[in-house]
């Protein structure tokens, strides 16, 4: 159990049966009044935001969260298959629960999967992934349009803006937090 006095940015608590992470926190105490703990929290499953003020005698369950090292195996339509690298147990996560993560996931990639009460709710990818460009328009030399980037498609089907010198078949590094191009990778 947590009490309101434990609340701080980054703490994970259970509210109405769902796991929440505190994203913003402010302590206030009007003169002669009681301590108030004002929180902004994000529902770790739905992403919805909750703004709530607690008093010091409010209590919170610790959410039953577990991170497991897993390997992403393959996808079949909207079903993404993963395997626990320690006990080889396999699970399926639906595409809609993975959100933008699917843009960066390639077969056999290692990642951490977060479970809430034994149900997978999120995956955490490496901060940077290297993906092969599968479709790119050649850069027309002498292009005077003034644009310094062009769209390419990578092996996962994700489309992003890259500098003009990136070609089909190149491997590029992408920042999974922002989805942006970082650099071309030479092998």
């Amino acid at each position, binding site marked *: 159990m947590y009490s309101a006095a434990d609340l701080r940015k980054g703490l994970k608590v259970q509210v109405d049966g769902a796991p929440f992470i505190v994203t913003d926190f402010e302590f206030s105490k009007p003169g*002669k*009044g009681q301590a108030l703990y004002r929180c902004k929290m994000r529902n770790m499953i739905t992403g919805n935001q909750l703004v709530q003020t607690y008093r*010091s005698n409010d209590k919170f369950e610790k959410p039953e969260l577990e991170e497991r090292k897993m390997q992403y195996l393959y996808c079949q339509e909207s079903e993404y298959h993963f395997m626990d690298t320690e006990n080889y147990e396999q699970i399926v996560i639906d595409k809609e629960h993975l959100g933008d993560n699917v843009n960066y996931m390639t077969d056999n990639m290692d990642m951490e999967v977060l479970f809430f009460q034994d149900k997978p709710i999120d995956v955490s990818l490496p901060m940077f992934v290297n993906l092969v460009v599968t479709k790119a328009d050649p850069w027309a030399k002498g292009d005077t349009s003034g644009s310094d980037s062009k769209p390419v498609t990578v092996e996962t089907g994700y489309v992003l803006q890259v500098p003009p010198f990136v070609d089909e078949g190149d491997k590029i590094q992408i920042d999974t937090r922002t989805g942006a191009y970082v650099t071309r990778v030479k092998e």
Partner: protein
Amino acid sequence: MLDLQGLHFRAAFFHSLRSFFVRQQFLEVDTPIRQPLLLPELNIEPLASEGWFLQASPELCMKRLLAAGCSRIFQLCNCFRKGERGQLHLEEFTMLEWYRTNADYEDLMADCEALLSSLLADLGGMDLCAVSNGSLRTGDRVISLQAPWDRLSVHEAFARFSPVSIEQAMANDTFDEILVEYVEPFLGVDRPLFLYDYPVELGSLARSKYGFPLLAERFELYINGIELANGFSELTDSQEQRQRFERELELMDDERRLRSSMPERFLEELAGLDRAAGIALGVDRLLMLLMGKESVGEVVSFAPGDF
């Protein structure tokens, strides 16, 4: 944590506070920081020290000094409140309290205006001072510090800013939440503001207003939505004070009640006190505003994170 220039500014600020009160013929007193008993206040959690307590405020001792015959006293001291930590809170913080006999809360409001004007005269020209030409710049706001300041009753403030009336807020036990959420952000944003006349339940040591027994002659000073000082006309009827303390004790949980006791000597001496008024001002918060900083931890020599 303050740098060398900051330490100089803080020292000049302390010097200016002291010289204001000395000029006004206030006697500087220093009472024990560690004491064996507390005034029963529901919402203040004390820090214990070997069976005694670190003071949450020098109020008890200073009122006893008034009863002993002092007429104007002030004290700059460190106070402690357990678990209070945030942008505007430190568990150990600096308090300025002053008390005067033959005075009421309106005299204290006038003191606040005079004190700030004296501070600005002393500090206004210094590099670190965020006030120029009598105006405090903070974000995109310009707050004029020239007296007279605004005065707004709690009743009126709730009518103006809160979704529910003060009566409803008291009945639902949501006064604090509504004050913080809906009212405070609008207080003292053009010029400093005194929020005054609190429901009597919210001023356990304050005298009730003559002719309005449900109101306490208590006020809070706000600048830029930040509460800086809490002052009131002192309740000097020891019979009524005893009943108010009993009510506070009743509302405490068992654990807190065991540590609290009726301050008998205080009540006894209170009976000898006539009209008086006293105020506590958060020194670190005022310095924070004058330096244009956003948290009290930035204006003390060492904050908890600096060790």
